[in-house]
Protein backbone atom coordinates (compact mmCIF):
# COMPACT_ATOMS: atom_id res chain seq x y z
CA UNK A 1 0.00 0.00 0.00
CA UNK A 2 1.06 3.58 -0.57
CA UNK A 3 0.47 6.21 2.08
CA UNK A 4 -0.09 9.58 0.39
CA UNK A 5 -1.79 11.11 3.42
CA UNK A 6 1.44 12.57 4.81
CA UNK A 7 1.35 14.98 1.86
CA UNK A 8 -2.39 15.48 1.63
CA UNK A 9 -4.21 14.72 4.83
CA UNK A 10 -7.10 12.51 3.84
CA UNK A 11 -7.90 9.09 5.31
CA UNK A 12 -8.88 8.06 1.79
CA UNK A 13 -5.22 8.53 0.78
CA UNK A 14 -3.66 6.60 3.66
CA UNK A 15 -3.79 3.22 1.97
CA UNK A 16 -3.70 3.55 -1.78
CA UNK A 17 -3.57 0.19 -3.53
CA UNK A 18 -0.47 -0.48 -5.68
CA UNK A 19 -1.43 -0.03 -9.31
CA UNK A 20 -3.82 2.86 -8.69
CA UNK A 21 -3.83 5.78 -11.09
CA UNK A 22 -5.12 9.09 -9.83
CA UNK A 23 -6.16 12.19 -11.74
CA UNK A 24 -5.28 15.51 -10.08
CA UNK A 25 -7.70 18.09 -11.43
CA UNK A 26 -7.99 21.79 -10.69
CA UNK A 27 -7.79 25.26 -12.21
CA UNK A 28 -4.47 26.83 -13.22
CA UNK A 29 -2.17 28.01 -10.41
CA UNK A 30 -3.63 25.78 -7.73
CA UNK A 31 -0.41 23.87 -7.11
CA UNK A 32 -1.22 20.61 -8.89
CA UNK A 33 2.34 20.10 -10.05
CA UNK A 34 3.79 20.94 -6.62
CA UNK A 35 1.38 18.46 -5.07
CA UNK A 36 2.36 15.54 -7.29
CA UNK A 37 6.07 16.38 -6.97
CA UNK A 38 5.58 16.42 -3.17
CA UNK A 39 3.98 12.99 -3.34
CA UNK A 40 6.85 11.62 -5.43
CA UNK A 41 9.51 13.22 -3.23
CA UNK A 42 7.82 11.89 -0.10
CA UNK A 43 7.99 8.38 -1.53
CA UNK A 44 11.58 8.84 -2.67
CA UNK A 45 12.61 9.73 0.89
CA UNK A 46 11.28 6.31 1.90
CA UNK A 47 13.19 4.62 -0.91
CA UNK A 48 10.44 4.44 -3.57
CA UNK A 49 11.40 4.97 -7.19
CA UNK A 50 10.13 8.06 -9.01
CA UNK A 51 9.33 8.70 -12.66
CA UNK A 52 8.44 12.18 -13.90
CA UNK A 53 6.93 12.64 -17.35
CA UNK A 54 7.03 16.35 -18.08
CA UNK A 55 5.68 18.44 -20.94
CA UNK A 56 6.85 21.77 -19.53
CA UNK A 57 9.88 21.53 -17.24
CA UNK A 58 13.44 20.99 -18.37
CA UNK A 59 14.73 17.62 -17.23
CA UNK A 60 17.65 19.35 -15.52
CA UNK A 61 15.24 21.47 -13.48
CA UNK A 62 13.25 18.41 -12.44
CA UNK A 63 16.46 16.64 -11.40
CA UNK A 64 17.59 19.68 -9.41
CA UNK A 65 14.20 20.04 -7.73
CA UNK A 66 14.25 16.42 -6.58
CA UNK A 67 17.83 16.68 -5.36
CA UNK A 68 16.69 19.68 -3.28
CA UNK A 69 13.61 17.96 -1.91
CA UNK A 70 15.17 14.60 -1.25
CA UNK A 71 18.51 14.80 0.55
CA UNK A 72 20.52 11.73 -0.36
CA UNK A 73 18.50 11.04 -3.51
CA UNK A 74 20.23 8.35 -5.46
CA UNK A 75 20.45 8.98 -9.18
CA UNK A 76 19.09 5.56 -10.03
CA UNK A 77 16.01 6.40 -8.01
CA UNK A 78 14.62 8.97 -10.45
CA UNK A 79 13.85 8.77 -14.15
CA UNK A 80 12.69 11.78 -16.16
CA UNK A 81 10.86 11.60 -19.48
CA UNK A 82 11.20 15.03 -21.06
CA UNK A 83 8.55 15.56 -23.78
CA UNK A 84 9.32 19.16 -24.66
CA UNK A 85 11.10 18.05 -27.82
CA UNK A 86 14.12 20.21 -27.15
CA UNK A 87 16.72 17.68 -26.08
CA UNK A 88 18.82 15.31 -28.15
CA UNK A 89 17.63 11.85 -29.09
CA UNK A 90 20.01 9.96 -26.83
CA UNK A 91 19.35 9.10 -23.23
CA UNK A 92 21.59 11.10 -20.95
CA UNK A 93 22.52 11.46 -17.33
CA UNK A 94 21.86 14.75 -15.58
CA UNK A 95 23.15 14.89 -11.99
CA UNK A 96 23.09 11.10 -12.06
CA UNK A 97 19.42 11.05 -13.07
CA UNK A 98 18.54 9.14 -16.24
CA UNK A 99 16.71 11.34 -18.72
CA UNK A 100 14.79 10.16 -21.78
CA UNK A 101 13.98 12.69 -24.46
CA UNK A 102 10.75 12.53 -26.46
CA UNK A 103 10.16 14.50 -29.66
CA UNK A 104 6.84 16.04 -28.59
CA UNK A 105 3.96 15.66 -26.08
CA UNK A 106 2.02 14.13 -28.98
CA UNK A 107 4.57 11.32 -29.49
CA UNK A 108 2.81 8.61 -27.49
CA UNK A 109 5.13 5.83 -28.66
CA UNK A 110 8.15 7.89 -27.60
CA UNK A 111 6.60 8.59 -24.20
CA UNK A 112 5.88 4.87 -23.82
CA UNK A 113 9.47 3.96 -24.65
CA UNK A 114 10.78 6.60 -22.22
CA UNK A 115 8.55 5.28 -19.43
CA UNK A 116 9.56 1.69 -20.20
CA UNK A 117 13.25 2.58 -19.99
CA UNK A 118 12.73 4.55 -16.78
CA UNK A 119 10.82 1.64 -15.18
CA UNK A 120 13.50 -0.76 -16.34
CA UNK A 121 16.21 1.41 -14.77
CA UNK A 122 14.38 1.51 -11.44
CA UNK A 123 13.70 -2.20 -11.55
CA UNK A 124 17.37 -2.95 -12.28
CA UNK A 125 18.41 -0.88 -9.27
CA UNK A 126 16.25 -3.17 -7.17
CA UNK A 127 13.24 -0.92 -6.61
CA UNK A 128 9.91 -2.63 -6.91
CA UNK A 129 7.83 0.24 -5.59
CA UNK A 130 7.49 3.58 -7.21
CA UNK A 131 5.38 6.57 -8.12
CA UNK A 132 4.95 8.12 -11.54
CA UNK A 133 3.80 11.67 -12.25
CA UNK A 134 2.65 12.97 -15.62
CA UNK A 135 2.50 16.77 -15.90
CA UNK A 136 0.34 17.56 -17.71
CA UNK A 137 -2.48 15.93 -19.64
CA UNK A 138 -3.69 19.40 -20.62
CA UNK A 139 -0.60 19.92 -22.76
CA UNK A 140 -1.05 16.48 -24.31
CA UNK A 141 -4.64 17.42 -25.14
CA UNK A 142 -3.41 20.34 -27.21
CA UNK A 143 -1.40 17.90 -29.36
CA UNK A 144 -3.81 14.98 -29.52
CA UNK A 145 -7.59 14.55 -29.35
CA UNK A 146 -9.36 13.44 -26.19
CA UNK A 147 -10.09 9.96 -27.55
CA UNK A 148 -6.38 9.27 -28.00
CA UNK A 149 -5.44 10.81 -24.64
CA UNK A 150 -8.14 8.74 -22.93
CA UNK A 151 -6.82 5.54 -24.48
CA UNK A 152 -3.25 6.52 -23.63
CA UNK A 153 -4.24 7.04 -19.99
CA UNK A 154 -6.04 3.70 -19.87
CA UNK A 155 -3.11 1.81 -21.37
CA UNK A 156 -0.56 3.57 -19.15
CA UNK A 157 -2.71 2.93 -16.05
CA UNK A 158 -2.80 -0.76 -16.97
CA UNK A 159 0.98 -0.80 -17.33
CA UNK A 160 1.41 0.89 -13.93
CA UNK A 161 -1.04 -1.57 -12.44
CA UNK A 162 1.11 -4.45 -13.68
CA UNK A 163 4.19 -2.73 -12.22
CA UNK A 164 2.50 -2.08 -8.86
CA UNK A 165 3.19 1.66 -9.13
CA UNK A 166 1.01 4.60 -8.21
CA UNK A 167 0.35 7.09 -11.01
CA UNK A 168 -0.55 10.78 -10.64
CA UNK A 169 -1.70 12.73 -13.69
CA UNK A 170 -2.46 16.45 -13.65
CA UNK A 171 -5.09 18.24 -15.71
CA UNK A 172 -6.09 21.91 -15.79
CA UNK A 173 -9.85 21.76 -15.29
CA UNK A 174 -10.31 25.29 -16.62
CA UNK A 175 -8.68 24.52 -19.95
CA UNK A 176 -11.19 21.92 -21.16
CA UNK A 177 -14.94 21.54 -21.38
CA UNK A 178 -16.84 19.59 -18.74
CA UNK A 179 -17.40 16.62 -21.05
CA UNK A 180 -13.68 16.23 -21.78
CA UNK A 181 -12.85 16.16 -18.06
CA UNK A 182 -15.68 13.69 -17.50
CA UNK A 183 -14.30 11.35 -20.19
CA UNK A 184 -10.66 11.58 -19.06
CA UNK A 185 -11.69 10.89 -15.45
CA UNK A 186 -13.00 7.50 -16.49
CA UNK A 187 -9.50 6.30 -17.32
CA UNK A 188 -8.50 6.59 -13.64
CA UNK A 189 -9.17 4.78 -10.38
CA UNK A 190 -9.46 7.94 -8.36
CA UNK A 191 -9.57 11.71 -8.46
CA UNK A 192 -8.07 14.47 -6.35
CA UNK A 193 -10.11 17.59 -7.03
CA UNK A 194 -8.58 20.96 -6.14
CA UNK A 195 -10.24 24.38 -6.13
CA UNK A 196 -9.75 27.83 -4.74
CA UNK A 197 -11.56 28.24 -1.46
CA UNK A 198 -13.92 31.14 -0.91
CA UNK A 199 -12.06 33.49 1.37
CA UNK A 200 -8.61 32.46 0.12
CA UNK A 201 -6.44 29.38 0.11
CA UNK A 202 -7.17 26.09 -1.55
CA UNK A 203 -9.31 23.11 -0.77
CA UNK A 204 -9.40 19.55 -2.04
CA UNK A 205 -11.53 16.44 -2.02
CA UNK A 206 -10.82 12.82 -2.94
CA UNK A 207 -13.13 10.67 -5.07
CA UNK A 208 -13.04 7.03 -6.05
CA UNK A 209 -10.41 5.80 -3.59
CA UNK A 210 -12.74 5.19 -0.66
CA UNK A 211 -16.39 4.16 -0.66
CA UNK A 212 -17.67 7.70 -0.45
CA UNK A 213 -16.29 10.92 -1.90
CA UNK A 214 -14.69 12.98 0.87
CA UNK A 215 -15.85 16.47 1.83
CA UNK A 216 -13.97 19.54 0.63
CA UNK A 217 -11.17 20.32 3.03
CA UNK A 218 -8.65 23.15 3.32
CA UNK A 219 -5.13 22.21 2.22
Amino acid at each position, binding site marked *: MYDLSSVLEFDALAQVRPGSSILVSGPAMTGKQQLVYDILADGAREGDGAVVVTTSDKAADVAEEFHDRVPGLEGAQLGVVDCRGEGGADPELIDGVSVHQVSSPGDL*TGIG*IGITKALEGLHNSGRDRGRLALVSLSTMLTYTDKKTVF*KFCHVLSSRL*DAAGYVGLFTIDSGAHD*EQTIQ*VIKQAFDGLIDIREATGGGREARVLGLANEPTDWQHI
Partner: protein
Amino acid sequence: MSESDPPVVLIVEDEPDVAETYTLWLEGEYEVRMGQNGDEGLELLDETVDVVLLDRMMPGLSGDEVLSQIRERDLGCRVAMVTAVEPDFDILEMGFDAYLSKPIRSGQLHDTVTNLLERSEYDSLLQEYYALVEKQATLEATKSSAELADSDEYEALTEEIAELRDGLSDTLGGIEDDDDFIATLRGLSNGDEE
Protein backbone atom coordinates in the same frame (compact mmCIF):
# COMPACT_ATOMS: atom_id res chain seq x y z
CA MET B 1 -11.81 -10.49 -38.88
CA SER B 2 -15.30 -11.96 -38.82
CA GLU B 3 -16.50 -14.28 -36.07
CA SER B 4 -16.63 -17.46 -38.14
CA ASP B 5 -13.68 -17.24 -40.52
CA PRO B 6 -10.25 -18.20 -39.24
CA PRO B 7 -7.77 -15.32 -38.99
CA VAL B 8 -5.56 -14.80 -42.04
CA VAL B 9 -1.77 -15.00 -41.80
CA LEU B 10 0.42 -13.84 -44.68
CA ILE B 11 3.93 -15.27 -44.85
CA VAL B 12 6.48 -13.31 -46.88
CA GLU B 13 9.62 -15.42 -47.12
CA ASP B 14 12.01 -16.08 -49.98
CA GLU B 15 13.12 -19.55 -48.87
CA PRO B 16 10.42 -22.00 -50.01
CA ASP B 17 11.30 -24.70 -47.43
CA VAL B 18 11.05 -22.26 -44.58
CA ALA B 19 7.76 -20.80 -45.81
CA GLU B 20 6.41 -24.32 -46.27
CA THR B 21 7.31 -25.24 -42.70
CA TYR B 22 5.55 -22.19 -41.26
CA THR B 23 2.50 -22.99 -43.35
CA LEU B 24 2.36 -26.56 -42.10
CA TRP B 25 2.49 -25.33 -38.52
CA LEU B 26 -0.20 -22.72 -38.96
CA GLU B 27 -2.69 -24.04 -41.51
CA GLY B 28 -4.83 -25.98 -39.05
CA GLU B 29 -5.79 -22.84 -37.18
CA TYR B 30 -5.39 -20.08 -39.73
CA GLU B 31 -5.91 -19.30 -43.36
CA VAL B 32 -2.34 -19.02 -44.64
CA ARG B 33 -1.10 -17.13 -47.70
CA MET B 34 2.46 -17.22 -49.02
CA GLY B 35 4.45 -14.62 -50.91
CA GLN B 36 8.00 -15.41 -52.11
CA ASN B 37 9.19 -11.82 -52.07
CA GLY B 38 8.13 -8.33 -51.04
CA ASP B 39 6.23 -7.57 -54.24
CA GLU B 40 4.26 -10.80 -54.10
CA GLY B 41 3.55 -10.20 -50.43
CA LEU B 42 2.12 -6.76 -51.13
CA GLU B 43 -0.08 -8.19 -53.88
CA LEU B 44 -1.53 -10.77 -51.50
CA LEU B 45 -2.16 -8.17 -48.86
CA ASP B 46 -5.66 -6.81 -48.35
CA GLU B 47 -7.89 -5.82 -45.45
CA THR B 48 -8.66 -9.46 -44.59
CA VAL B 49 -5.06 -10.13 -43.51
CA ASP B 50 -4.65 -10.09 -39.72
CA VAL B 51 -0.98 -10.93 -39.25
CA VAL B 52 2.04 -10.68 -41.57
CA LEU B 53 5.22 -12.66 -40.96
CA LEU B 54 7.84 -10.73 -42.81
CA ASP B 55 11.36 -11.92 -43.51
CA ARG B 56 13.71 -9.01 -43.18
CA MET B 57 16.44 -10.07 -45.59
CA MET B 58 14.96 -10.82 -49.00
CA PRO B 59 16.17 -10.16 -52.52
CA GLY B 60 14.25 -7.26 -54.06
CA LEU B 61 12.11 -5.25 -51.66
CA SER B 62 13.46 -5.51 -48.12
CA GLY B 63 11.29 -6.24 -45.10
CA ASP B 64 11.65 -2.63 -43.97
CA GLU B 65 10.38 -1.33 -47.31
CA VAL B 66 7.46 -3.74 -47.29
CA LEU B 67 6.61 -2.61 -43.76
CA SER B 68 6.51 1.06 -44.70
CA GLN B 69 4.19 0.28 -47.63
CA ILE B 70 1.92 -1.75 -45.35
CA ARG B 71 1.73 1.17 -42.91
CA GLU B 72 1.05 3.61 -45.75
CA ARG B 73 -1.90 1.53 -46.92
CA ASP B 74 -3.27 1.74 -43.40
CA LEU B 75 -4.58 -1.82 -43.35
CA GLY B 76 -4.44 -2.30 -39.60
CA CYS B 77 -2.71 -5.67 -39.77
CA ARG B 78 0.03 -6.67 -37.33
CA VAL B 79 3.52 -7.26 -38.65
CA ALA B 80 6.12 -9.58 -37.12
CA MET B 81 9.61 -9.32 -38.48
CA VAL B 82 11.54 -12.53 -38.92
CA THR B 83 15.24 -12.01 -38.65
CA ALA B 84 18.46 -13.98 -38.50
CA VAL B 85 20.01 -11.70 -35.89
CA GLU B 86 18.70 -10.89 -32.44
CA PRO B 87 17.37 -7.36 -32.82
CA ASP B 88 17.20 -4.74 -30.10
CA PHE B 89 14.58 -2.36 -28.83
CA ASP B 90 14.87 -0.17 -31.96
CA ILE B 91 12.93 -2.73 -33.94
CA LEU B 92 9.79 -1.70 -32.10
CA GLU B 93 10.61 1.94 -32.68
CA MET B 94 10.82 1.16 -36.41
CA GLY B 95 7.20 0.15 -36.43
CA PHE B 96 7.24 -3.64 -36.31
CA ASP B 97 4.81 -5.19 -33.85
CA ALA B 98 7.03 -8.12 -32.93
CA TYR B 99 10.11 -9.97 -34.03
CA LEU B 100 11.14 -13.57 -34.26
CA SER B 101 14.75 -14.72 -34.50
CA LYS B 102 15.57 -17.63 -36.76
CA PRO B 103 15.44 -20.54 -36.31
CA ILE B 104 11.82 -20.36 -35.20
CA ARG B 105 10.10 -23.19 -33.40
CA SER B 106 6.46 -24.06 -33.86
CA GLY B 107 5.42 -23.06 -30.34
CA GLN B 108 7.10 -19.69 -30.71
CA LEU B 109 5.37 -18.98 -34.00
CA HIS B 110 1.98 -19.88 -32.57
CA ASP B 111 2.59 -17.73 -29.49
CA THR B 112 3.54 -14.73 -31.58
CA VAL B 113 0.53 -14.99 -33.89
CA THR B 114 -1.80 -15.48 -30.91
CA ASN B 115 -0.29 -12.48 -29.13
CA LEU B 116 -0.65 -10.23 -32.19
CA LEU B 117 -4.29 -11.24 -32.65
CA GLU B 118 -4.88 -10.50 -28.98
CA ARG B 119 -3.45 -7.02 -29.46
CA SER B 120 -5.95 -6.39 -32.24
CA GLU B 121 -8.67 -7.64 -29.94
CA TYR B 122 -7.43 -5.29 -27.21
CA ASP B 123 -7.52 -2.33 -29.60
CA SER B 124 -11.09 -2.98 -30.65
CA LEU B 125 -12.21 -3.46 -27.03
CA LEU B 126 -10.53 -0.18 -26.12
CA GLN B 127 -12.26 1.56 -29.00
CA GLU B 128 -15.63 0.18 -27.88
CA TYR B 129 -14.87 1.15 -24.29
CA TYR B 130 -14.08 4.71 -25.30
CA ALA B 131 -17.30 5.03 -27.31
CA LEU B 132 -19.37 4.00 -24.27
CA VAL B 133 -17.47 6.24 -21.85
CA GLU B 134 -18.05 9.17 -24.17
CA LYS B 135 -21.75 8.40 -24.37
CA GLN B 136 -21.92 8.16 -20.59
CA ALA B 137 -20.12 11.49 -20.18
CA THR B 138 -22.59 13.14 -22.54
CA LEU B 139 -25.53 11.81 -20.53
CA GLU B 140 -23.91 12.99 -17.31
CA ALA B 141 -23.34 16.44 -18.75
CA THR B 142 -26.91 16.86 -20.00
CA LYS B 143 -29.03 15.20 -17.31
CA SER B 144 -29.48 15.85 -13.61
CA SER B 145 -28.43 13.17 -11.15
CA ALA B 146 -32.12 12.44 -10.44
CA GLU B 147 -32.76 11.88 -14.14
CA LEU B 148 -29.70 9.66 -14.38
CA ALA B 149 -30.85 7.54 -11.43
CA ASP B 150 -34.14 6.94 -13.26
CA SER B 151 -32.63 6.24 -16.64
CA ASP B 152 -32.54 2.60 -17.78
CA GLU B 153 -30.25 3.60 -20.62
CA TYR B 154 -27.76 5.04 -18.15
CA GLU B 155 -27.89 1.96 -15.97
CA ALA B 156 -27.34 -0.40 -18.92
CA LEU B 157 -24.48 1.76 -20.12
CA THR B 158 -22.79 1.74 -16.71
CA GLU B 159 -23.01 -2.06 -16.61
CA GLU B 160 -21.63 -2.43 -20.11
CA ILE B 161 -18.71 -0.16 -19.24
CA ALA B 162 -17.86 -2.25 -16.18
CA GLU B 163 -17.95 -5.44 -18.27
CA LEU B 164 -15.71 -3.98 -20.94
CA ARG B 165 -13.25 -2.76 -18.33
CA ASP B 166 -12.97 -6.32 -17.00
CA GLY B 167 -12.58 -7.61 -20.55
CA LEU B 168 -9.73 -5.19 -21.14
CA SER B 169 -7.87 -6.21 -18.01
CA ASP B 170 -8.20 -9.88 -19.03
CA THR B 171 -6.78 -9.19 -22.49
CA LEU B 172 -2.99 -9.15 -22.94
CA GLY B 173 -2.70 -9.83 -19.20
CA GLY B 174 -3.58 -6.17 -18.66
CA ILE B 175 -0.55 -4.83 -20.58
CA GLU B 176 2.06 -6.50 -18.43
CA ASP B 177 4.57 -6.79 -21.19
CA ASP B 178 6.71 -3.89 -22.47
CA ASP B 179 6.33 -4.86 -26.12
CA ASP B 180 2.53 -5.01 -25.78
CA PHE B 181 2.59 -1.63 -24.05
CA ILE B 182 4.61 0.13 -26.73
CA ALA B 183 2.87 -1.55 -29.66
CA THR B 184 -0.52 -0.57 -28.25
CA LEU B 185 0.58 3.05 -27.85
CA ARG B 186 1.94 3.07 -31.38
CA GLY B 187 -1.44 1.89 -32.61
CA LEU B 188 -3.00 4.94 -30.94
CA SER B 189 -0.59 7.38 -32.57
CA ASN B 190 -1.14 5.83 -35.98
CA GLY B 191 -4.85 6.28 -35.49
CA ASP B 192 -5.30 2.89 -37.19
CA GLU B 193 -6.79 1.13 -34.21
CA GLU B 194 -10.35 1.13 -35.50
